[in-house]
C-alpha cells in the first residue's frame, strides 16, 4: 500500500508540482511552437505521452543492464539520445502502417519529439532519483501528462488571444511569452503541495 502511495506521489509531483514545462522549463520549444490550436496541442501531447512512456522503460533497462555493469555511466546522454531518436523513428513507421489517420493527425509533431529535451530530461531524472522500473514508467507518464496539461491550457489561452485587442508591439510572440510566464507563476502555487 505504501508503494502505491509513493507512485501516486510521483504522478502528482511530475504532473503538477514539478511540471516539466512550468517548473523545470523543459520542452519549451514544442510548447511555444505547436500551441496555436488546441487540436494540435492535444495531438502533440498524445505523441509525447507515448514516447515518454516508452523511453522511460527502455532507457531504464539500458542503464541498469548495460551502462552500470560496464561502468559506462558517462555515455548516458549520447546513448539516451540514440534511444529516443530510434524510438521516434520506429513509432513513426509503425503508426504510418497501422493507422494512417493518426499519422495524418500527428503530422510533423512526431519527428519533432526527437529533439524534445523533456524526453531526455525524464530519462535522466528517472536515473538520478533512483526510481525502480514501475516508478520510472509512472514518472514518464506523469511528466508527459503534465506537458499535455500545460500545452493544452496554453493553446486554449492563445486561441483567445488571437481574437483579443492586443497592443501592437505585444502582438504574436511577446504576449505568448508573457502568458507563459504568468502560467508558470500560477503553477508555482502547487509548490509545497506534498511535504
Amino acid at each position, binding site marked *: 500500500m505504501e508503494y502505491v502511495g509513493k507512485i501516486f506521489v510521483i504522478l502528482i509531483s511530475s504532473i503538477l508540482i514539478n511540471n516539466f514545462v512550468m517548473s523545470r522549463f523543459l520542452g519549451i520549444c514544442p510548447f511555444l511552437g505547436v500551441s496555436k490550436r488546441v487540436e494540435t496541442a492535444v495531438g502533440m501531447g498524445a505523441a509525447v505521452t507515448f514516447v515518454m512512456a516508452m523511453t522511460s522503460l527502455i532507457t531504464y533497462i*539500458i542503464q541498469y543492464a*548495460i*551502462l552500470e555493469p*560496464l*561502468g*559506462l555511466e558517462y*555515455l548516458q546522454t*549520447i*546513448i539516451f539520445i*540514440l*534511444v529516443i531518436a*530510434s524510438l521516434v*523513428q*520506429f513509432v513513426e*513507421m*509503425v503508426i*504510418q*502502417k*497501422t493507422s*494512417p489517420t493518426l499519422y*495524418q493527425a500527428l503530422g510533423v509533431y512526431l519527428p519533432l519529439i526527437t529533439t524534445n529535451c523533456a524526453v531526455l530530461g525524464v530519462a535522466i531524472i528517472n536515473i538520478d532519483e533512483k526510481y525502480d522500473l514501475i516508478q520510472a514508467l509512472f514518472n514518464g507518464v506523469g511528466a508527459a501528462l503534465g506537458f499535455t496539461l500545460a500545452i493544452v491550457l496554453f493553446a486554449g489561452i492563445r486561441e483567445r488571444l488571437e*481574437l*483579443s*485587442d492586443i497592443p501592437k508591439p505585444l502582438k504574436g510572440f511577446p504576449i505568448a511569452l508573457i502568458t507563459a510566464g504568468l502560467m508558470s507563476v500560477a503553477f508555482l502555487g502547487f509548490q509545497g503541495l506534498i511535504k
Partner: protein
Amino acid sequence: MEKILLSLLSLGGMGLLFGAVLAFASKKFAVEKDPRAEAIREVLPGANCGACGYPGCDGFADAVASGRAPVDGCTVGGSPVALKIGSIMGVEVDQKERVIARVLCQGDCNNAVNKYEYRGIQDCVAASMLAGGYKGCGYGCLGLGTCVRACPFDAIHIEDGGIAVVDPDKCTGCGKCVEACPKNLIELIPESSQVQVLCISRDPGKQVRQNCKVGCIGCRLCVKACQFEAIDFVDNLARIRYDKCVNCMVCAEKCPTGAIYADFAKRKVAIIAEDKCIGCTACRKVCKFDAIEGERKQKHRVLGDKCTGCGQCVERCPVDAITLNLRQN
C-alpha cells in the same frame, strides 16, 4: 585502453542494433504509395488551402490517384494544373474559365452611414452578432478583415475606406473568403465578366438611399436598359446573369447610384474591315443600338459613339469582317 574499447563497442553496437531494427522495420512496415499520387503532388500549387475539400494538397493528390476526386478539383491551380493532372491520370480535361472573388459592396466610409460605433473584437463575425453589425445597411461590408485572415494567398485587403477589396491578380478563386464572410458578400465571378452589381441589399429603395450612396435602390432602370435579358430582378435587387451578359456596360451607364460597376477601360468597339464587307446588312439588323449604318451592297460603318461592344454583329457577320477591339482613347 580496455575502457575505450568497451565504450566504443557498446555505443557502436547499440547504434548498429537500433539501425538494424529500423532498417528491418522500414521494410516490414513499408507503406505502398501510388506513384501517381506523388506525381500529382508535384504539380499541385502546394498552398494546402483546402479549397478542394481535402486536407491539404497531399490529401487531394491521394484522392485523385484513387479516383475519389476529379482531376480538375484544384481551383487554385486552375486549368494548367488540371491539364497536367489529366495527363498523369490519362484522362481528358475540359477547360474551365478562371473565377475571381469579388466583394459585392462599395459602401466605404464616404458612401455608407454607420448606426453606432463598434469597439469590440476586431472580427466581422463577432461584429455582425451585435445587431447585425455597426453599418446602417445590414448587408454591407464591415471591413474587420475576417476574409483577409481567411485568404491563403494575400489577395484580399481592407482598403482605406474600410471595406475589403480583392486583388484580381493574386486571387485564385479558391473560395475561402466566400465561406468566411458572415455577410455572404463575396461571390466568385467569371474572369471575363466586366460588369457586376456591387450591392446585395434587399432593403426597399428609400431605406437603401438613407444608408448608402452607392446601393441598389431597385429602380429597375438597368433591367429596362439591358437588351440581352441578362439582369434578374428579385427582392428589390438587380443581379447580373453572367452566362447571358455580353459586357455591353449599358446597365452601368444607366444606374443612377453607381451600384453597377463596369470596367469602362475594357469596353470594346466593333470595327468592320472594309475589304471584307459585302454589304449584306446582317450586322445592321442585328445591332440593338443602331450603331451600324450602310446601305445594301455598300460598305457598312460602325458609329463609334453608339457602339457598346456587345459583339452581336461579330457573331452574325457571314464573312468574319467584324472584330472587337479596345477603344483607343
